[in-house]
């Protein structure tokens, strides 16, 4: 019997250890971007170019 008990507790301990070690996986958030960062995607970047793009749209698309 002893070996079985030991085995069970060992499995339990191992499982706990495994679970603890996999904390990142359990925290997986679906739908959240997983790729590299893009420096031009930020609010600041968009703000910085907004005026130029507005002017460009007027210049390029209006019927002069």
């Amino acid at each position: 019997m002893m070996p079985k008990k030991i085995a069970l507790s060992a499995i339990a301990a191992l499982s706990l250890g495994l679970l603890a070690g996999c904390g990142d996986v359990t925290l997986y958030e679906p739908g959240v971007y997983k790729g590299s960062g893009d420096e031009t995607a930020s609010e600041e970047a968009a703000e910085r170019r907004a005026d130029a793009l507005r002017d460009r749209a007027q210049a390029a698309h209006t019927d002069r």
Partner: protein
Amino acid sequence: MKLTKKKAAGAGAAAPGLLGKALTRRAFLQGSGLAVGGAAVAGMLPTSMMKKAKAARRIDPDQEIREVLTVCGHCSVGCSTIAEVQNGIWVGQEPALDSPINLGAHCAKGAALRNHGHSTRRVKYPMKKVGGRWERISWEQAIDEIGDKILHIRDESGPDSLWFAGSSKANNEGAYLQRKLAAFWGSNNCDHQARICHSTTVAGVANTWGYGAQTNSYNDILKSKCIVMCGSNAAEAHPVAMQMILRAKENGSHMVVMDPRFTRTAAHADTYVRFRSGTDVALIFGMLYHIFENEWEDKEYLEQRVFGMDRVREEVKKWTPDEVERVTGASEEAVYEVARIMAENRPGTFVWCMGGTQHTIGNNYVRAYNCLQLALGNIGVEGGGANIFRGHDNVQGATDVGPNPDNLPGYYPLSEGGWQHWARVWDVDYEWLAERFDQEEYDDGQNGKIKPMNSGGITVSRWIDGVLEDKENIAQRDNIRAVMMWGHAPNSQTRLPEMKEAMEKLDLLVVIDPYPTVSAVLHERTDDTYLLPAATQFEQAGSVTASNRSLQWRFQVIEPLYEHKPDKDIAYLFAEKFGFADEMFKNIEVVNKQPTSESILREINRGTWSIGYTGQSPERLKEHMENQRTFNVASLKAEGGPVDGEIYCLPWPTYGTPEFKHPGTHVLYDTSKHVLDGGGNFRANFGTEYEGENLLAEGSYSKGAEIQDGYPEFDSELLKQLGWWDDLTEEEKAEADGKSWTTDLSGGIIRVAMERGCHPFGNAKARAYVWNFPDPIPLHREPLYTPRYDLVEDYPTYEDRKVFYRLPTRYASVQATDYSDDFPLIHTSGRLVEYEGGGEETRSNPWLAELKQDMFVEINPADANDADVRNGQMVWLEGPEGGRIRIKALVTERVGRGTVFTPFHFGGRFQGEDLLERYPEGASPYVRGESNNTATTYGYDSVTMMQETKTTLCRVTPA
């Protein structure tokens, strides 16, 4: 031109572009060999192409990017674009938003221009065929060998045994040198694309009211209340023109499209009228019928400014609604409706293109359109006009100053007077020039004799007959034995099976072009065949005349790739070989055997008084390009800035010397403006009276004119009679005495006339009745190959002619046979937006080629069912002269029942055979296909030799 400099955008090292191998960060992807960019292209494109493309982007971050303003080379709209060049490589293309013509816009071709700076599918160095194989040779060897052979042929057969096609794609300077080269060689046997494009327009409108050109402009359409397009598919052929047309439509203008085919242009029209191909005169006179019937004509205008409309009116009476419907298929309601729209919405503009010109009676179509616009008083007004959209980027310029067989630069005649004028401009002895020509006399076709110097040369539409026709029947010393195709696709001409035969019969064939073209592969020649690499438009600088007559300066983007040479340099090399370079370039600056474009334009300026190509100095043109933003889009007039008050790029006529500062002419014949402000009236080019009737204008004159009535053209005598002679300076008097406004090299006569508010070319009526044409009143005549043989009796074609442009020309003898049972379908043709002309250049551009990979025929579902053909199936399309093409069927209602349509841009296949192996290695276009002209037929306009490509017959059977 260096406009601005800016810091290179690239931050990394050599950037390979998307065609390159992927950069991947994850090991398993690297291991798998997957690439991020596509490799689908790998199977289709050679590796050299990929390397070239890789190198194409911002290659060196430390090198500055140069922005060069240039002009698209694909149609006559004249779209500017900005080329970004780094380290001599064309790395980017930006929209030229400041251009008043296109406002940055492009069509598929213009937006793909940059590829011309990279294409490897070119003829890369001079080549010749030796035993059926292409071999590389040097330029020196090529010019030497070709020159020797041509000179040998000249010794045996005279100067007219050489025929060459110049190019509407050359800039004005290149095209002018092509004409000058022919003149110094001693022959009029040169021609270019205008012959098969708008020659009937040029002859028709020039003989009606003065100049052979678009009267208004693309931009001026913004002021039109009605736009009628007949035989023009601008959405594909002149897409950027649609910007102005659709803007006008949004502003309330009525847009009408009349076409046998429901084109992509028709898809935008308010009113669309389908009619049978080849019946425009009947259709237009059907409209005039309603106009006269309802008294919608502009009576005051007709009385003051038009001659012969009463004679036209008699003919129009015959075109009752019933007869119009019988001939054209268009209903009374439809025809009346268009007439009413035009009458109620003035000014209205009338647009036509190849659909109206490429016919055996193309000159009649053109004059019928003219009569319609004159009756409504729509010519010489803003928003009105005959807006003739021309084809190639410089076809107008090459017509004005280039290689024409029937006139000299500026439309000076081939008579002694015309030659004397140019001999003076060129500063050569007239007698010496005359001796360059064959001195014999030949049949002039009018029961007389004429010297080749004074007779129109063989046209591009007929050169094959100059080779194949029995020598006894040709009005020159011998057959054509040597041909140079210098910037001309042969597959845009009809009768390709006979062209193949002609090419094989020649002693010498020389192709001068950036691309091999169909000329390199159509035939099975084994020797005496040369390819010379000409530079593209972007590898040379010069002026280029858009359809609206503006001369834009096209700045050079890159140095010629490989061993390509600009046309002007090639002209110099031949002149040198032929031994007359010193005379020909006497007053042209030549550096290292390269004539400068600026000095050539200045020579053009010194000679072309007749059409006002005199004021457009290179300096003025460049200044206009640099100040594009200051021009008003609708008026094309600069508002403020350094060229205040001038019209964009000085549309001809820009009379007088550059110093005279004429602003250019936006709208021709416009009496509401002073002549010094671009105003005018109809030209007095045909005398002052005809059969006792006055030809001069009556009570109509341009604003501020001192002569408030009609008057003849100006010469020194008229100035003296008017008492204006002393307005000339002493130097001007010395030059002008005994001269007319077109031959006075001082420009004094023009200056004095215009300063007194008068037009140097006089003030006359337009001619609705052109007595010097075969049909003075435009008549309907059935096409040579007509599906309505029952109408031939009522509307027969002409009698055959023994000598016409030196060649026998058949009409009645062709029409004598009824082919309509065996060949029941009308075969008409036209453009696709992706390709241009013969298409070799555009089919060698992968960005365009990908979009149209198959030659096809549009066929109506009913006709397809009759022929047992399904959509997408391969079919044989066969013409009545035996030519046949194997192509795909596109079953569509775009064409009506009984009509099929083919595009004319394909080449590289011939009657089912792939000609790939005949191209020099690596120089074949990405897309090859059957040329539709393999299946087209005989038929030539009775005034200009325009070929008939819009109405012939065919049958379609499953392949």
